[in-house]
C-alpha cells in the first residue's frame, strides 16, 4: 500500500493531484489505523514531530515524457537552527492552507472539490471560506513545496496534534515501528477568520427581484470563472513597513494638592448655588447679564466675569480667596464696594447698637425695670459673683441677698419719691431746638417721635422731627428736617409706620418711617383747606361709624391757630373736612352778646385759635377743645356748628387737655395762667386747681399706671402730682437747670419712666423712683374718692 502510495506520488502532474489528495485523505484516514511504514518519513507516534528532523521525502514529478520536472524547493529550512521551530509552525499552518493552494495551483478545476477533502481535517484552518488564496499570504515565500505529501501528512497531523505535548524524538526500533499506534484526533477550537452570514430576503420583498438577479449573475460568474481567461489568479503580499522608534517627552505636569473640608454648610451652599445657577439659566441668556448687574449695586462690568466664574463653583471661601488674591487690582475696588454696600451699613448699625447697649446697659435695664445691682467698683466683683449665684439660687446667696435687700429697704424708707435721671436723647442735630411734642409709636414701644420747633412767633427757625429708638440714645433713627418748626407729632395706630407732623406754618405732613426718605408721603401744602396758623395739635383718632355699619376708620384730626378743627382723610391725598370752627365766645357777664361785641374789643377774627383738643377715650364722637381764650368746649363730631358745653375756668390759653385714662369723667387742663385744673365732665367749674408756680405750664400728662398721678411741665420745673397723697403739693418736683425750660412731658407706657423735653433739644428720661404703691391705682371712680360725694353735684 505504501508503495502504491509512493508510486502514486510520482505519477503525472495532471493526475497526481487528485491522487495526492486522495492518498492524502487516505493516509489521513489511515493514520489512526495503520502503521506508517514509510521509510522516508519518520514514524508518527501520534505526537508532534519536528518535520525538520525527519529526512524529507523527495517528491519527484515526471511529466508525460518522463522528464524530471520536479520543481526545486525554494525554501530550505535549516535543521540545525533551533529557532526554526517557529517557522516550522508557520509552515505548518501555511502548509495546511497551502494544501488547498497546492491543489489549486495544479488544477483549477478541482478547486472547490479538493479542499473539501483536505478540509475534513483542515477545516479549522480554512474555515468556511472556499477560496483561501488570499489568506495564504506567504505561500510564495513558502514556495511550491511539493516534495512531501507525507510531509504534509505529518504537518497535518502535527498541526492537529498541536495541543499535545512535544516529545524528544528517539530512535525507534523496528518493533516499535511495526507496533500499532493509536492516534487520537480531536477537533481544535474553531478560529473564525471570516464570517459572512447569509442574508435572506423574502420573495415578496421589494428587493427580491434584485437579489435574485444578483444571485443569478453570481452563479454565472462562478461558472464562467473556472477556466475563463478573464480571471487570473494572483497572489499579493503586503509589505510591512519598517518600524521605527520614536520618543516623546511631554512637559512636566504640574500637580497641586487642594484640600477642602466639606462641611454641612458648604454642601448646602453649593446646592443652593447650583439651583440658583440653573434657575438663572432658565431665563433668557440676554437677561442674565442684566440680572447680575441689577442684583449688584455700583459695579463695573468687569465684575460680570468674576460673578460668572464664582457663581458656579462651590462656595468655599478658600477658592474664592485664591482667585481673588491673584487679581490684585480689583482689591481696591472691592474695598470700596464693601464700604458702600448696604449690608455693611447694616452691620455698622448693629455694631453701634451693641455699643450703646454696652454703655447704657444699666440705664436701659433700669428703664425696663430689670434688676440691677448698684455698687461701687470694689464691690463690683462681689456683686458680680452674687449675680451669678443668684441665678443658681443657692441658700447662702438667698440670705445675702435678703440682707442686702433689707438694708436697701431700710435705707429706702426715708428717701422720698424722686426722679432719677437715666439718659437723654440728644445729639448735635437737635441742640438748640425746642422740644415741642413727643409721641410714642403705637406698635413699637421703643420708638419715640420728637418734634422740635419753637413756640413763639419771633423765635421761629427751621425745625425737625426725629424718631428716636431706645436702643440708640445717641443718634436718632430718622431725621426729618423741615423749613418750619414742628409743633406737633403723632404716630398712627392703624398703620404704625405713619408719622403725622404738624408745622408752624399750618401744613401737615405724613412720613413713612420705614424708610429713611425725608420726603413726606403726604403733604398738605397744596390743600385748599390747610390751616393758616400753626397746627398746635395733631392726633390720629379711631372713629367708629357704628350707625353706618362701617369698620373703624382712622382719621387725622388737627387743630390750628386759625380756629378750625379739621379732620383729614387719606384718600388720594389729604382731604380735609372741618369738624368745628371755634368761634369766639363772649364773656358770661355780658348778656347781650351782639351789642357787646360791637362795643368790645375789635375782633380780628371771629374765630378763636384752638390750642388743643382731646377726644374722649370711650366715645370718640365727643371731644374737648381748648382755645386761646381759656375756654374749653365740649364738642361733638356730629355737630360742627355748635358746642355742646363750655367749661370756663382758665384765664389764659389752654395748652393741654387730658382725659383721665381710668376715670372717664375727669380731665385735666393746663394753661398759661400758671394753673392746672381738674374738671369733672358734668361740672363747669373746675374741681381742683393747682396753682403752684408762677410760670406757664406747657404740658400735662396722666400716668398710665395710676389714676391719681399726673405730671405737669412748666418752665422751670416738672411736677409729679399724686392726688391720693396730696392735692396741695406735688410729690416730686424736678427743677430744671437755669436757662432751660421744660416744655413737654410724656409718660412711658410700660415702665415707671417719664420723658421730659426741654428747650435745648434734650429729651431726658427719668425714672420714677420710690413712688408710693397703691393696690388700686387704676380706679375708675377715683374722682369720687378724691372729691367726695359732691363730685356729681352740678354747680
Amino acid at each position: 500500500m505504501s508503495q502504491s502510495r509512493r508510486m502514486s506520488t510520482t505519477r503525472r502532474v495532471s493526475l497526481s493531484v487528485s491522487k495526492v489528495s486522495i492518498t492524502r485523505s487516505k493516509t489521513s484516514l489511515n493514520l489512526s489505523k495503520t502503521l506508517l511504514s514509510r521509510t522516508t518519513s519518520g514514524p508518527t507516534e501520534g505526537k508532534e514531530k519536528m518535520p525538520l528532523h525527519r529526512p524529507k521525502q523527495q517528491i519527484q514529478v515526471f511529466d508525460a515524457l518522463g522528464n524530471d520536472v520536479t520543481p526545486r524547493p525554494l525554501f530550505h529550512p535549516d535543521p540545525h537552527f533551533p529557532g526554526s521551530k517557529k517557522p516550522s509552525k508557520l509552515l505548518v499552518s501555511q502548509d495546511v492552507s497551502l494544501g488547498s493552494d497546492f491543489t489549486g495551483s495544479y488544477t483549477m478545476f478541482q478547486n472547490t472539490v479538493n479542499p473539501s477533502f483536505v478540509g475534513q481535517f483542515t477545516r479549522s484552518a480554512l474555515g468556511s471560506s472556499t477560496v483561501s488564496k488570499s489568506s495564504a499570504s506567504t505561500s510564495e515565500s513558502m514556495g511550491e513545496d511539493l516534495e512531501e505529501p507525507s510531509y504534509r501528512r505529518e504537518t497535518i497531523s502535527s498541526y492537529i496534534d498541536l495541543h499535545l505535548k512535544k516529545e524528544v524524538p528517539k530512535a525507534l526500533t523496528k518493533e516499535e515501528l511495526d507496533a500499532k499506534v493509536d492516534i487520537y484526533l480531536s477537533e481544535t477550537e474553531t478560529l473564525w477568520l471570516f464570517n459572512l452570514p447569509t442574508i435572506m430576503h423574502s420573495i415578496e420583498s421589494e428587493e427580491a427581484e434584485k437579489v435574485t438577479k444578483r444571485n443569478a449573475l453570481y452563479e454565472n460568474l462562478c461558472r464562467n470563472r473556472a477556466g475563463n481567461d478573464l480571471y487570473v489568479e494572483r497572489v499579493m503580499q503586503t509589505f510591512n513597513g519598517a518600524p521605527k522608534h520614536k520618543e516623546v517627552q511631554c512637559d512636566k505636569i504640574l500637580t497641586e494638592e487642594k484640600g477642602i473640608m466639606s462641611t454641612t454648610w458648604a454642601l448646602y451652599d453649593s446646592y443652593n448655588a447650583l439651583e440658583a445657577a440653573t434657575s438663572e439659566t432658565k431665563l433668557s441668556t440676554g437677561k442674565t447679564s442684566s440680572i447680575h448687574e441689577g442684583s449688584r449695586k455700583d459695579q463695573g462690568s468687569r465684575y460680570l466675569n468674576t460673578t460668572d466664574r464664582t457663581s458656579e463653583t462651590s462656595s468655599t471661601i478658600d477658592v474664592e480667596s485664591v482667585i481673588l488674591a491673584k487679581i490684585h487690582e480689583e482689591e481696591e475696588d472691592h474695598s470700596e464696594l464693601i464700604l458702600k454696600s448696604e449690608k455693611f451699613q447694616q452691620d455698622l448699625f448693629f455694631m453701634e447698637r451693641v455699643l450703646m447697649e454696652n454703655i447704657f446697659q444699666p440705664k436701659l435695664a433700669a428703664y425696663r425695670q430689670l434688676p440691677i445691682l448698684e455698687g461701687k467698683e470694689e464691690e463690683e466683683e462681689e456683686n458680680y459673683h452674687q449675680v451669678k449665684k443668684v441665678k443658681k439660687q443657692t441658700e447662702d446667696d438667698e440670705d445675702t441677698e435678703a440682707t442686702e435687700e433689707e438694708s436697701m429697704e431700710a435705707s429706702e424708707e426715708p428717701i422720698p419719691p424722686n426722679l432719677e435721671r437715666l439718659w437723654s436723647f440728644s445729639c448735635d442735630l437737635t441742640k438748640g431746638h425746642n422740644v415741642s411734642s413727643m409721641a410714642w409709636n403705637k406698635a413699637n414701644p421703643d420708638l419715640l417721635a420728637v418734634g422740635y420747633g419753637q413756640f413763639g412767633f419771633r423765635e421761629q427757625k427751621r425745625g425737625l422731627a426725629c424718631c428716636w429708638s431706645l436702643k440708640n440714645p445717641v443718634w436718632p433713627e430718622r431725621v426729618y428736617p423741615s423749613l418750619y418748626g414742628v409743633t406737633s407729632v403723632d404716630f398712627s395706630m392703624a398703620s404704625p409706620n405713619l408719622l403725622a407732623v404738624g408745622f408752624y406754618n399750618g401744613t401737615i405732613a405724613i412720613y413713612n418711617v420705614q424708610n429713611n426718605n425725608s420726603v413726606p408721603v403726604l403733604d398738605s401744602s397744596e390743600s385748599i383747606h390747610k390751616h393758616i396758623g400753626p397746627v398746635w395739635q395733631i392726633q390720629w383718632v379711631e372713629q367708629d361709624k357704628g350707625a353706618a355699619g362701617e369698620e373703624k376708620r382712622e382719621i387725622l384730626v388737627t387743630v390750628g391757630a386759625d380756629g378750625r378743627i379739621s379732620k383729614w382723610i387719606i384718600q388720594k391725598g389729604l382731604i380735609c373736612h372741618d369738624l368745628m370752627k371755634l368761634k369766639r365766645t363772649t364773656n358770661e357777664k355780658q348778656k347781650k352778646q351782639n351789642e357787646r361785641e360791637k362795643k368790645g374789643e375789635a375782633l380780628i377774627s371771629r374765630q378763636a385759635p384752638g390750642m388743643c383738643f382731646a377726644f374722649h377715650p370711650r366715645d370718640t364722637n365727643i371731644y374737648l377743645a381748648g382755645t386761646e381764650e381759656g375756654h374749653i368746649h365740649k364738642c361733638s363730631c356730629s355737630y360742627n356748628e355748635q358746642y355742646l358745653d363750655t367749661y370756663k375756668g382758665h384765664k389764659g390759653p389752654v395748652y393741654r387737655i387730658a382725659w383721665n385714662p381710668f376715670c372717664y369723667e375727669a380731665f385735666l387742663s393746663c394753661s398759661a395762667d400758671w394753673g392746672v385744673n381738674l374738671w369733672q365732665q358734668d361740672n363747669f367749674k373746675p374741681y381742683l386747681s393747682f396753682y403752684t408756680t408762677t410760670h406757664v405750664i406747657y404740658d400735662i400728662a396722666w400716668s398710665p399706671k395710676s389714676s391719681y398721678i399726673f405730671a405737669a411741665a412748666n418752665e422751670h420745673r416738672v411736677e409729679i402730682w399724686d392726688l391720693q397723697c396730696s392735692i396741695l403739693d406735688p410729690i416730686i418736683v424736678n427743677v430744671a437747670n437755669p436757662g432751660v425750660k421744660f416744655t413737654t412731658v410724656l409718660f412711658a407706657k410700660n415702665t415707671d419712666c417719664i420723658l421730659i423735653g426741654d428747650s435745648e433739644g434734650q429729651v431726658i428720661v427719668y425714672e420714677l423712683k420710690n413712688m408710693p404703691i397703691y393696690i388700686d391705682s387704676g380706679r375708675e371712680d377715683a374722682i369720687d374718692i378724691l372729691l367726695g360725694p359732691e363730685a356729681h353735684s352740678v354747680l
Partner: protein
Amino acid sequence: MAEVEETLKRIQNHKGVIGTMVVNAEGIPIRTTLDNSTTVQYAGLLHQLTMKAKSTVRDIDPQNDLTFLRIRSKKHEVMVAPDTLLGLGLDYGWICAGATCPELCSTLNM
C-alpha cells in the same frame, strides 16, 4: 456712603471705644484706627475665629448664619460683625471690630 462714614465716625468717637477696623475677606484691613501691628494682629486672629464661629453656626443648621460675635475678656470686649456679600455673587467677608474698656460701664452684668 456719607451715612456709612458718619456712622463709622460716631462709633469711633464713642466713649469707651478703643478702636475700630474694617477688614475684608482675606484679612486685609481696609480701615482702621489702631496702629499697624495691632491691626494686623487683630485682623488675623479675629478672622480665623470668626470663620470658625461661622462654620460652627452653619454646621448646626445650614440655613442659619452668624450675625454678631462678642468676646468679653477681663480687660476688653471685642465685637465682631461678620458678613458676606453672597447676594452679589462674591463670597466676601469682612469684620468690623471695636474694643471697649468695660470699666467704663458702671456694672458688670452678665
